[in-house]
């Protein structure tokens, strides 16, 4: 049944796609979970909707409320759609160095954007949002970095979908931002199949983003649970772009740049399995499509030029 009474209900149940050309062998297979097939085109629809529903259920979010959220873009777009349909206002605190498309989409949905400085990246957006929350006690901050509903959306949705569609799954690879996807899916899969490996792909940005004044301004999301993870890769923009293009060229999947970083970690994981002579079914997340990054020049020209253009941008 593919009929829904509203866009919000068309969430999840995303396809899991075999990747015979990208997979290193018949025994070590890669699979892409197409999360760009969600209502606003990213995996963030899952946590965004879940956070809203739980806040409604516990009475924190009521008709006419304004939602406040620090976001580098996708969570904001997901919240903006849901807020529009449910009649909430939305204020997004977003680093100024995110893609033009993200800004335009948020504005189109009617969200108000408060920009935080490029220096310090999302850490600064989080800090600014916490300040705003103090000054506006009538605003409701859902706070994706610390809201257990974020991980629960994946624990009860994404994770079970993967295990149902591919019971032989051995590895799960996803991006590390709020940590909600990895912690939620990872916790579910490891409860069901303790031997499953859970691997994070973390974006490595240009120096601007790490321009903190001191190390104690560093930030680890409250949701993060290192016990769920078994490995973590840091992937720079050159490798992320290279893999984004490789995924398009080999398998026809037009994905965003953070997915390239995830593919990079998934291929490293698959390579380890090949060298160990062990069969593997590696599932990775396609977090969003490439549409929102066309203006960054990620898909055209040489990789070196594209990586240079991306320097200083937040692409995950």
């Amino acid at each position, binding site marked *: 049944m593919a009929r829904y009474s509203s866009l919000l209900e068309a969430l999840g149940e995303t396809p899991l796609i075999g990747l015979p050309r990208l997979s290193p062998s018949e025994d070590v297979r890669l699979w892409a979970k197409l999360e760009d097939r969600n209502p606003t085109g990213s995996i*963030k629809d899952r946590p965004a909707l879940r956070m809203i529903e739980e806040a409604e259920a516990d009475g924190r979010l009521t008709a006419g409320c304004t939602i406040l959220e*620090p*976001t*580098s873009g*996708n*969570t904001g777009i997901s919240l903006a759609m849901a807020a529009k349909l449910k009649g909430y206002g939305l204020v997004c605190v977003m680093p100024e160095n995110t893609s033009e498309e993200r800004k335009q989409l948020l504005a189109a949905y009617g969200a108000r954007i408060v920009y935080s400085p490029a220096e*310090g*990246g*999302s*850490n600064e*957006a*989080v800090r600014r949002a916490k300040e705003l929350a103090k000054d506006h006690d009538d605003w409701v901050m859902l706070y*994706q*970095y610390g809201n257990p509903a974020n991980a629960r959306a994946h624990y009860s949705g994404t994770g079970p979908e993967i295990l149902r569609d591919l019971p032989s799954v051995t590895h799960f690879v996803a*991006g*590390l*931002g*709020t940590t*909600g996807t990895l912690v939620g899916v990872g916790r579910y899969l490891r409860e069901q199949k303790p031997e499953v490996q859970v691997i*994070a792909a*973390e*974006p*490595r*940005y240009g*120096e601007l*983003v*790490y*321009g*903190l*004044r*001191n*190390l*104690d*301004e*560093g*930030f*680890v*999301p409250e949701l993060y649970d*290192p016990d769920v*993870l*078994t*490995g*973590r*890769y*840091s*992937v720079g923009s050159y490798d992320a772009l290279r893999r984004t293009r490789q995924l398009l060229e080999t398998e026809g999947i037009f994905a965003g740049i953070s997915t390239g970083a995830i593919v990079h970690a998934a291929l490293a994981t698959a390579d380890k399995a090949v060298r160990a002579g062990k069969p593997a079914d590696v599932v990775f997340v396609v977090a969003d499509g490439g549409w929102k990054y066309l203006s960054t020049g990620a898909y055209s020209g040489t990789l070196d030029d594209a990586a240079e253009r991306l320097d200083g941008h937040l692409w*995950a």
Partner: protein
Amino acid sequence: MAVTVSIPTILRTHTGGEKSVDAKGGTLAEVIDDLEANHGGIKGRLVKDGNLHRFVNVYVNDEDVRFAGGLEATVADGDNVTILPAVAGG
């Protein structure tokens, strides 16, 4: 064992502004001790109470050492060690 260590902006006061320095050691702990010998004060920024500082991430060839033995993670000749402050995403 000689490795190359990438230093984040925030710690370059210890390396005279150098973005990347060479160091020796068979484990991350030995590499950090060697860094300290040549760039005094850096160890205190990286290690707290015998563990890596909560907001410091260290990668050997792009893999997080926290999943490879932490300070006891082994490093090999020619490895790239990257030090980065923890930042948010999403």
